[in-house]
């Protein structure tokens, strides 16, 4: 089961298109670190970053981290801002999953765009 795929399939088509495009663009970005308008550090949660995906007034925030390998970024959980804030539970899950994917091989896969 791919938890990120499961989440992304629940999004409206426009949001899916935006997320897919942003990932495609970041894969080949010549700018590093990625500009904060695309990916920004999540305050209060070390090593966690948020992809900034706004669509139709909704702020989707897939949370991820760098790794496990070099030049890799892993999306850990899909989240959505509510009242300008992310649910604390989503941020905590991201932290837990970051530990798991950095400690154990085989818990990640290529983003499927499906």
């Amino acid at each position, binding site marked *: 089961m791919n938890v990120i795929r499961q989440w992304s399939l629940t999004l*409206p*088509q*426009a949001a*899916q*298109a*935006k997320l*897919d*495009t*942003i990932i*495609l*663009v970041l894969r*080949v*970005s*010549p*700018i590093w670190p990625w*500009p904060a*308008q*695309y990916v920004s550090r999540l305050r209060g949660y070390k090593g966690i970053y948020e992809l*900034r*995906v*706004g669509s139709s007034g909704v702020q989707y925030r897939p949370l991820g981290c760098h790794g496990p390998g070099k030049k890799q970024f892993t999306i850990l959980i899909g989240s959505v801002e509510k009242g300008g804030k992310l649910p604390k539970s989503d941020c905590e899950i991201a932290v837990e999953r970051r530990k798991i994917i950095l400690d154990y091989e085989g818990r990640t896969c290529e983003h*499927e*765009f*499906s």
Partner: protein
Amino acid sequence: MSLVRQNLAAKFTDKAYRDAFVAEQIFSRLPLKIRYLREEQGMTQRKLGEVAGMAQTWVSKLEDPNYGKLTISTLLKVASAFDVGLQIDFVPYSKVLSDAVYRTGGSFVVSKFADDPGITGMSGAFSGMVQGTQSTQTMGTLITFPENVGIATSGTAPRNVTAVTSSKATTLAQVAGL
């Protein structure tokens, strides 16, 4: 066909998705390219704004993938400020998809006019051709169309345009002085 392209192609069967994908190729991709070109040309947002005739705050918005209100007129101003070209065209979805999937980091690199070998490297040849024909007065300019290209005509042809059809090509001769 790569798995990524295959999966995205499957999503394209949904019209809402493919329409949004096309839009995002502009609204989410171009802001990064604007920032890259600005930095490559050693410009601050303020400097780009001065050259393009807009406030720094607008340049900041143009570099935000979530701004979503880029207009052709604004993009033309930015292209002019960078001294690069801008192409906007209608294309098949398959091209949009392939461009998005197979794009590389090299696609962000765009030569300014002064550094564009496709223009500046040929300027000598162009001037030579012009000099060589100065002694002969040009009486008309020809536009030759490939065979089987349909040209819709209706009503009366403009006074100064003569349509000539041959077996190989359709030629429109715009004759000067008539």
